[in-house]
């Protein structure tokens, strides 16, 4: 055959560059980072600055907006234990839903799958990319919490946890991201063009897994939590990825 | 009376002048072929007539009334770029909505009529998103035909239609202009098809209408000539230039006789002088040649 400009197919690298190019070219990521930065600011400022009457949403310290300390009512479905960083996992479902269905709706999936038979790279690159953008939203939330705390004048001192605990808590939450993004990917790859189905489906599944997060990643989490989350994240990402690959292999792309 | 009268219409998008001082007259009951290159402002003009875009300047009159008059616009059917239908609703539901939108009393009967015209009766229950490109185009045409509009604006309706679809398209347009006296503004790049039905032509270039001519006027004014080829052209040219002053040999090995002599007389004359004819053709000017000729001229006439 004649020598072609198309180099030896380094599939994962090309798939990643396609996704990153699109991620940074469209406004989706920037909007979600903006939202996750302003969310904590809103929560913290609004609840503390309300003319002092008794309120069900009392935040004693800034870090409560990150996660509740392990033994304090982590299981109860009450408001304050919900109104923290874990909400961002729902945001990642929205991100995955829109990002993947945009590819099928615009028809660009035709170009991707025309030159690839194996769907593995597509799934792997999507999980890596979406976990990365999820991590960005977490970091934005963290900064927002600090800013919100400053404005609301909340205390920054860490009760019954330490700086390392806080860092491990954040890291293990980020380690959980591949788990959530692979599940959301599974739904979106099944829904293809139907954006509403992929978003609603991912939100529903994330809600199912939601109660486990505070247990797995309390404020005073240690190295074991990080290890557990990493292991869980990778195993789930592996299963989620394999089933997405299965769906893609056995259904029509168009 | 003119169905569409446009005087120096202008429309620009972010500095780029899509339509630039366009003046246009579409007589009632005509099939007006609107031709021009990609991006020369055809779709923009059609969208301006349908009120989809707001013109920067210039006036548009439909049937003598201002184009913003609700009475006139209710009788306009349009298919611009793609059939605007809801993908998740069935073809029938989409047409039903448009029938309600037009306030048609006998909507079911009317829907079946237009579906029968575009040969889509049996596919009426399919969801619009599951139709193929050709079927979507026919649904768009059916929707534009609902309520037998007085003015039909079709932007490249032939796109995606197969030979059978094109034939139906031609029949629809000739029928609607004959029985309902409607007017059709149709843009297309397939000159072969357009040539068969268009009664008037408008050629647009960079947002300006550089030529507006009726079909038979085009035939009359363009220099028609007879093309003839014989086994001995030199001898033939001598004989021809004796009798006809417009005889000349062109560079494709054929002889041309300008002026409007009957080709049979020329043949008779050559044969009687013992010259054998291999090729004889009355040169009917084709739309594509006329278009390319007009486009190549620099000045705007």
């Amino acid at each position: 055959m004649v020598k072609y400009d198309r180099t030896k197919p380094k599939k994962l690298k090309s798939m990643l560059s396609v996704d990153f190019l699109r991620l940074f070219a469209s406004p989706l990521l920037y909007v979600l980072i903006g939202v996750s930065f302003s969310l904590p600011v809103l929560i913290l400022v609004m609840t503390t600055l309300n003319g002092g009457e008794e309120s069900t949403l009392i935040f004693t310290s800034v870090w409560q907006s990150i996660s509740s300390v392990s033994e304090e009512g982590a299981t109860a479905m009450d408001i304050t234990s919900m109104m923290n960083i874990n909400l961002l996992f729902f945001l990642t479902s929205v991100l995955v839903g829109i990002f993947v269905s945009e590819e099928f709706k615009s028809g660009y999936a035709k170009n991707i799958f025309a030159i690839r038979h194996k769907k593995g790279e597509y799934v792997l690159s999507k999980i890596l990319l979406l976990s990365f953008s999820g991590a960005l939203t977490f970091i934005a939330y963290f900064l927002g919490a600090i800013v919100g705390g400053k404005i609301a004048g909340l205390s920054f001192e860490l009760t019954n946890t330490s700086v390392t605990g806080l860092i491990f808590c954040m890291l293990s939450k980020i380690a959980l991201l591949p788990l959530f993004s692979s599940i959301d990917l599974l739904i979106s790859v099944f829904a293809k063009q139907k954006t509403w189905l992929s978003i609603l489906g991912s939100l529903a599944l994330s809600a199912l897994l939601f109660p486990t997060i505070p247990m797995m990643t309390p404020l005073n989490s240690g190295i074991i939590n990080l290890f557990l989350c990493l292991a869980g994240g990778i195993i789930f990402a592996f299963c989620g990825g394999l089933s997405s690959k299965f769906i893609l292999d056995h259904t029509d792309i168009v | 009376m003119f169905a569409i009268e446009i005087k120096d219409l202008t429309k620009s998008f972010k500095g780029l002048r899509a339509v630039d001082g366009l003046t246009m007259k579409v007589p009632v009951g005509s099939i007006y072929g609107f031709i021009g290159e990609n991006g020369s402002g055809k779709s923009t003009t059609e969208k301006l007539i349908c009120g989809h875009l707001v013109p920067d300047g210039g006036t548009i009159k439909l049937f003598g009334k201002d184009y913003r008059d609700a009475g006139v616009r209710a009788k306009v059917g349009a298919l611009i770029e793609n059939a605007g239908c809801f993908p998740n609703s069935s073809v029938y539901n989409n047409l039903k909505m448009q029938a309600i939108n037009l306030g048609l009393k006998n909507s079911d009967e009317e829907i079946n009529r237009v579906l029968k015209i575009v040969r889509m009766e049996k596919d009426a229950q399919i969801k619009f998103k599951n139709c193929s490109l050709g079927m979507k185009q026919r649904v768009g045409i059916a929707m534009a035909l609902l309520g037998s509009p007085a003015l039909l604006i079709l932007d490249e309706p032939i796109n995606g239609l197969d030979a059978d679809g094109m034939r139906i398209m031609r029949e629809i347009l000739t029928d609607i202009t004959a029985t309902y006296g409607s007017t059709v503004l149709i843009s297309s790049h397939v000159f072969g098809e357009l040539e068969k039905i268009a009664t008037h032509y408008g050629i647009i270039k960079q947002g300006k209408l550089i030529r507006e001519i009726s079909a038979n006027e085009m035939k009359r004014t363009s220099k028609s000539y007879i093309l003839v080829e014989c086994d001995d052209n030199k001898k033939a040219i001598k004989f021809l230039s004796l009798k006809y002053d417009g005889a000349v040999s062109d560079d494709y090995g054929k002889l041309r006789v300008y002026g409007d002599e009957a080709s049979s007389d020329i043949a008779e004359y050559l044969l009687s002088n013992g010259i054998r004819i291999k090729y004889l053709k009355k040169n009917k000017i084709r739309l594509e040649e006329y278009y390319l000729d007009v486009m190549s001229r620099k000045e705007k006439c």
Partner: protein
Amino acid sequence: MDQNQIIFDKPSFIERLKRMLGVDFYRLLHTPVFYIFLAISAIIPAMVLSMTGMSQEGEIAKPLYTETWQMIAAKQPLYVVNDIADYANMNMVFIFGGIMISIFIGHDYRSGYVKQLFTTHPQKQDYMLSKSLTGAFSMTCMCVTYIIGTVFSGILSGTSFEVNVSSLLISILSKMILSLGWAGLYTFINVILRKHFGIAIALSFFIGTGIPVIGAAAIVGNSSLLNLFLYGSSVYACLGSSVTAFFSGAIVSIVWFIFYAFLGSVILSKSDVY
């Protein structure tokens, strides 16, 4: 048929509006979006009612709502959020309504059907009025299913039912009237931001939650000036509201409705369809 016989009978305003409403209602009733949102507004009260309040120092969490009708409206008009029970009531229907109208109008533009609408309807106010009225109708239906959901979950969780019936009725009716104003606002947002569906739906959600008014209340305190805003008067239509509250809510709603319909029509007629 010779040409000048083509008569163009100008359809009257009512006729045009009737046609446009016919199209919108046909689509509303034939697509799942409307029914999904009716179901959502029935389920949400059940979920919220079961949520427990903030538990201090580990004692068992006290239930958020002592009376079922708190789900419909708060006891007294508190513009500031200090108790979730005062915030999460029937005003949430206006949040769902915002999202539904965004999807409904967004569908019009994405599918391109708006080309047909604006070909046959040159006047833009037909579009604005028809979409606002359809939105108001769907929000009122959502209020109905919300109330049904509340009653059911009230019976299940055994919360008390006694309330001053007349003011309950007033607050329900005034919230339904207010849906007119809200629909006008949402239609305006989605028509102006038609090119950016993402931002339109996010903005509708943001305004629907009433955060701007709550923020203003945090600064300016509980002044009745806030009733001028849609969210303000939605909160004002509370369990203790009187007939005057009803009329003030109705006036505010209708004024906003007309204002947004008029402003939207003017802007639309000046700008391209897509």
